[in-house]
């Protein structure tokens, strides 16, 4: 397994501990709290406020990818006649459901509840249906209508629909847990969530500095608590510590790379199974991924004014993967400008159609608008069988030589 060739973070052990504790707690120490499997775009604040323990199968999928266990888990799913063309996170998860013994960490704990929110993709609906059938656990679907509008504004009726469903979700969870949701607890959880998100935004913004204090893999790894621990005190504490460390790096002009010669933007989910090997190809050229479109997905802020349900409805409907091609062009161009980059790289991810379909057009339009060149790499976020290092290295070489 390759090693990272750029600066290690002081908070890295803290991150590791935090995530390990999360998985351990999920398996052993949830103290009778009901376990809910939730999608990464679900309003977990409501779940936490009701003292339900959230677990993230997508994060587990990334873990399988990073540990090189994805192919084996996917093969278990394929033996159960799931198509090899389906999302590798989902296939890993289905494989784990059938064969937890051989899965990393012995698999995820059984869900008492399933909450799926379609704001990231259509796959999570089908994946969670499969989980519901397997575990006979109650399933709640939060349907967040896709926003095709150029300005990224959802329709009023979409927000009303989502808000009404959030009330349903609360009623559903109250019934399942036989508890009542405390509005104060919800607000407190939402504020903790906002705080962590705000700190994370600050961390990401620090990378506007020249040289950048972080490279994209740092962003991918450090994003994990925002997804899996958002709404907890530990999460906010961690990002406070991380922000301090990064602020210090910027103050001392510490570069993530030994020598930053090029600045790039990354689009799509990370290539988990070859995380360091792949990004090291760019490090070879002194190219640093100073920002990306993926880790900012959880950089939405909520304010404490007005009705929290309405705020959740807006926040969770406007997640970037629920937005149109034009909004994604706008956001990419904005990152290119604000982070002063030389080019961008888009991962055409076999496993993630909502993120990848449209990339060819986005690449063309963004280059037209910003004058910066873009490269498309064909791979998969989790299944290594779709990764061809030789071909990819050649394409990176051509692209980087074009940047010189």
């Amino acid at each position, binding site marked *: 397994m390759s090693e990272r060739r750029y600066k290690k973070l002081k908070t890295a052990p803290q991150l590791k501990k935090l995530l390990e504790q999360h998985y351990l707690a999920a398996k052993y120490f949830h103290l009778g709290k009901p376990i809910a499997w939730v999608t990464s775009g679900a309003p977990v604040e409501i779940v936490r406020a009701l003292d339900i323990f959230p677990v993230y199968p997508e994060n587990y999928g990334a873990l399988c990818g990073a540990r090189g266990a994805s192919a084996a888990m996917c093969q278990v799913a394929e033996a*159960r*006649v*799931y*198509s090899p*063309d*389906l*999302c590798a996170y989902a296939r890993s998860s289905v494989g784990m459901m059938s064969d937890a013994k051989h899965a990393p960490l012995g698999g995820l704990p059984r869900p008492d509840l399933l909450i799926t929110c*379609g704001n990231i*993709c*259509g*796959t999570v*609906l*089908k*994946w969670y*249906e*499969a989980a*519901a*059938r397997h575990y006979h656990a109650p*399933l709640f*679907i*939060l*349907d967040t*209508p*896709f926003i*095709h509008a150029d300005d990224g504004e959802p*329709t*009023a*009726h*979409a927000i*009303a*629909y989502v808000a*009404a*469903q959030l009330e*349903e979700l609360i009623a559903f969870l109250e019934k399942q847990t036989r508890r009542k949701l405390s509005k104060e607890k919800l607000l407190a959880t939402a504020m903790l969530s906002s705080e962590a998100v705000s700190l994370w935004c600050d961390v990401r913004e620090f990378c506007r500095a020249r040289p950048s204090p972080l490279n994209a893999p740092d962003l991918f790894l450090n994003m994990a608590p925002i997804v899996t621990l958002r709404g907890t005190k530990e999460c906010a504490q961690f990002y406070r510590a991380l922000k301090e460390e990064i602020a210090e790096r910027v103050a001392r002009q510490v570069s993530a790379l030994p020598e930053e010669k090029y600045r790039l933007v990354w689009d799509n989910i990370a290539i988990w199974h070859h995380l360091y090997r792949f990004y090291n190809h760019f490090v070879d050229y002194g190219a640093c991924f100073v920002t990306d479109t993926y880790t900012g997905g959880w950089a939405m802020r909520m304010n404490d004014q007005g009705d929290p349900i309405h705020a959740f409805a807006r926040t969770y409907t406007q997640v970037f993967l629920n937005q*149109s*091609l*034009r909004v994604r062009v706008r956001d990419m161009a904005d990152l290119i400008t604000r982070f002063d980059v030389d080019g961008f790289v888009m991962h*055409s991810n*076999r496993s993630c*159609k*909502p993120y*990848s*379909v*449209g*990339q*060819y*057009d986005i690449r063309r*339009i963004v280059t037209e608008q910003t004058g910066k060149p873009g490269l498309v790499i*064909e791979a998969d976020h989790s299944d290594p069988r779709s990764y061809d290092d030789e071909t990819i290295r050649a394409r990176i070489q051509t692209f980087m030589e074009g940047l010189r």
Partner: protein
Amino acid sequence: MKNKIGYLCTYVPEEIIHAAGFLPVRIAPSTTPPTRADAHLQSYTCCLARSCLDQALAGRLNDLAGVVFAHTCDTMQGLADIWRESFPNLFVETVVGPVALNSPHAQKYLVAELRRFVAALEQHFDVRVTEDALRASIRIYNTRRRALADFYARRAEFSAVQWFNVMNKALTTPPEAISDRRSATSNQQSAIENQKSKIGVVLVGATIDEPTLPQILDDLGARIVADDFCNGARYFDTLVAEEGDPIEAIAARELTRATCPCKHRALDDRAERLLKLVKDNRADGVIFYHKKFCDPHAWDYPPLAAALDREKIPHLLLEVEQVAPVGQTRVRVEAFLEMLSEG
């Protein structure tokens, strides 16, 4: 003035388009391999998306005044935006219907979304979609649905290829022209023979867009006794209520008609429906007819196969690209039919 508006998915409300003065026509994949679509769509998207876009890029859909999408799968979601980029002056809209059909709020949401769609049509084309026009369109489309249901009731009189041609034509011709169905050549005698001797199969999938499989079934002497295709039985499933508010009625149909895997009503509703189709039509087996890279149907396959296995109903999976390869499809179907006749 162009008087046709194209759509790809049958969740698009044809009555509304019709009431606005346009003929809704289904855009279907052709049998020509795409050449231009690769600049916009990855190879891991389905042939339906790639072929339909390709036809548009090749200028073969220039007689359309607009294209309307419905929210279904991730590929269609992305395709709608890609289509807008490629044709900036074309009316391109998506009716973002609910996915959670079991939500008590889905109807209210869909009604508002349909009204938004109506307003978009009115504004772009400078037309008025009146309540009367909607009612009239609903009646016309219901008549077509009934006619197709009648045709299905007599399907034993027709060959599989004939069935394919009728359905294929139906979705691109004006709904007013329904008389063809009744006068289509039929063979009463073969109907009687068919009931007795031939093996009957139920076909399940998204869409069937070329006749290779129907031709093979005819050649091998098997009959399609029922199907669960978007451009087959599910197209005309459930009528729209002709009383009450027309938009409410159109929305209600969308929520109650036979579902496709992109929508959720209950965990077992598709399996129950499939088992019922097999039992009611005394089918000998089921053939899944899937397009490669069609995620929603691929997801439903394991639970549907399991439901069939529990009832000991034999089934076969065909995964095809743009045109089903004759030799490979034939040997599988032939072996499957041999298996059914021995058992």
